[in-house]
């Protein structure tokens, strides 16, 4: 019982402090970032931690003087993954002066693309949304800023090639959720299969992926050398369990970025040992940025959520997105001066050169053409207690990735 009351008290306390608002008095006018995300529907598996990381980072920036004295005020709303609610929140945030929006929901981002392009509002689509938005010339205001799903597939394939005995003659199974997101890596992997001479088969399982036994019976019979799992949320841990159950070695399971501590806990830490995943941002609190957050935000009790989330995979992704955004805002303010507008912020983003958030993430370079930032990532492995990187930051087969980007971007231009 004690634990329970403690939990409740902690929850209430943390919330009360977190909502204390960003009322830190600073003279200069605030910058508004709209974090309009899905806290109640499809993205619940990630949004709480992700958003907590974003809020804590912004809080840390505010506590340490803001961006050249400008505090950042986040506008946070739930959209329930419904486009019409997302658009309402977007229009409202725009009126309140937001210069950047993060929906963290593929359907909402997709519905909003045309509007942000028209309204000159920066939209960050880290690890969600349209991959072809990496083409900055077609999508000047959209910034995926981290490896797209295509780049992730390429990185995973390259890892197999370099560290797991090459690709040639291998059988690789792509087990994915049956949705556009699940099918996204297919073209890149198919091209690679042709080029590198390995065999690829895809195994779709029905959404939401909570029951996949039939799919995995088939996968086992295919006798794959490696399995790439491509899903999100509850389906991921079911995939890992089924893979292990069907005799696939943990070392041969590779996952898209959506596999985190929660999934490891749910699968069972010891079973999970050896499973690998793509990683876009470092995990754990052993980074300078995280230490700053702990010093300025968590220890004074200003954190926006439960302590134990700090440093988790999704928390750090949230931190990284805001680190890049703040950096862009800082560059824009230095170069063009206040007040910050969407257009200035966009040019700020495009000036980011080799920014790595003090080692938290791979160096990101955004240009007018490349809004993906190079498509870097690394592979990390669950060691029984934490995610441990097994490679350095690298990127792979960007030529194939960019073929996809340009092809889809061209289709988008024609569709207008």
């Amino acid at each position, binding site marked *: 019982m004690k634990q*329970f009351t403690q939990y409740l008290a902690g929850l209430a306390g943390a919330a009360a402090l977190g909502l204390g608002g960003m009322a830190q008095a600073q003279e200069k006018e605030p910058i508004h970032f709209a974090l309009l995300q899905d806290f109640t529907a499809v993205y619940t*598996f990630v949004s709480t931690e992700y958003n907590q990381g974003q809020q804590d980072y912004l809080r840390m920036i505010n506590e340490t003087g803001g961006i050249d004295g400008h505090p950042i005020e986040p506008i946070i709303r739930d959209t329930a993954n419904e486009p019409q609610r997302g658009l309402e929140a977007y229009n409202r945030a725009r009126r309140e002066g937001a210069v950047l929006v993060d929906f963290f929901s593929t359907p909402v981002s997709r519905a909003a693309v045309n509007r942000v392009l028209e309204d000159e509002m920066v939209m960050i689509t880290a690890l969600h949304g349209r991959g072809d938005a990496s083409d900055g010339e077609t999508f000047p205001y959209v910034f995926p800023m981290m490896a797209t799903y295509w780049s992730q597939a390429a990185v995973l394939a390259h890892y197999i090639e370099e560290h797991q005995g090459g690709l040639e003659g291998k059988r690789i199974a792509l087990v994915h959720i049956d949705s556009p997101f699940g099918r996204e890596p297919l073209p890149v992997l198919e091209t690679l299969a042709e080029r590198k001479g390995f065999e690829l088969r895809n195994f779709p*399982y029905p959404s939401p992926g909570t029951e996949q036994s039939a799919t995995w019976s*088939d996968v086992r019979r295919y006798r794959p050398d490696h399995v790439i799992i491509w899903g999100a949320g509850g389906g991921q841990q079911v995939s890992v369990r089924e893979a292990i*159950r069907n005799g696939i070695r943990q070392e041969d399971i590779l996952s898209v970025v959506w596999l985190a501590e929660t*999934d490891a806990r749910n699968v069972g830490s010891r*079973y999970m040992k050896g499973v690998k995943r793509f990683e876009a941002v470092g995990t754990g609190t052993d980074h300078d940025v995280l230490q700053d957050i702990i010093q300025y935000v968590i220890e004074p009790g200003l954190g926006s959520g439960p302590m134990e989330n700090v440093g988790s995979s999704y928390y750090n992704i949230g931190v990284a997105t805001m680190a890049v955004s703040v950096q862009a805002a800082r560059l824009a303010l230095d170069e063009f001066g206040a007040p910050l507008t969407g257009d200035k912020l966009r040019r700020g983003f495009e000036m980011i050169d080799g920014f790595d958030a003090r080692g938290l993430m791979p160096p990101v370079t955004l240009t007018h053409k490349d809004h993906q930032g190079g498509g870097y990532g690394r592979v990390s492995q669950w060691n029984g207690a934490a995610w441990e990187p097994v490679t350095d930051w690298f990127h792979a087969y960007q030529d194939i990735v960019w073929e996809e980007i340009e092809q889809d971007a061209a289709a988008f231009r024609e569709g207008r």
Partner: protein
Amino acid sequence: MDFQFLLELTVNGALTGWMYSLVALGIVLIYKSSGVPNLAQGAMVMIAAYLVWVFSSMLALPIVLALLLALVAMFFLGLLTERLLLRRMVGQPIIMVVMLTLGLESLLRGIGPGFLGAAPKSLDLGLNMMPIIVGEVFINREYLVGAAIGGVMVVLSLLFFRTRVGTKLRAVSDDHVSSWAVGISVERAVGISWGLAGIAAVAAGAMWGSVQGVDWTLTTLLFPAIAVVILGGLDSIYGVLVAGLIVGVLGSVIPGYVDPLVGGGTRDVVTSLIILLTIMFRPHGIFGREDIERV
């Protein structure tokens, strides 16, 4: 044709199907006694799973105690739902009742993840994850346990209907007015059926929660459960078992062979078609009672 493959699909499909039956059982119990289609059963399963998680993880109680506490809590939640909401709906058109249960679903989906956290939680029942291997066929141990519990629950329900209270329930399911006439409290009988549905939800929530983690996606179990219920007959307890088997096996075997051909997950299609074809050709299901409508 790979016989082993077919066999494995069939066995695991059957086990999954019986795990769906756990969810479907609650719907049938309620429909049988009161004619209310409870579309909030998926949400009740989710709430039950959250309760088991609260007792076992948050309060760190032994799992058996946690399950028992959840059983009691869900029984009373079921009773309460009937008393406060459904009892007032007697005589209302079916669509109103359906919408009410959908409103209840929203409410529960807000309450569970809202108060207890929306990120998926793990529910460890202490089951071994490794499969049972018979020949070349891998049998999912968790599903086996779940299916066994499903079977036991159905048998228990059947036995329950032979007890004194159960006999009253059967009378109520036959005819409300005549039951009143012979002195049976229809209200209490219907209430008890809701309580029993709550208990079934705990079994379903614990098993599915352990397989897939506890979060709102548990409510999506409603769809396969509906297929089971429709196919078996809305008011047939053993229909749940037979239809669970059929829905599970078809939902496993057909996608097993068809998915590679069409390149998409076809299980929801199979489930939809089962519902549709049943309704077109035998609306009352395999074992359901055929209603004769009076003009």
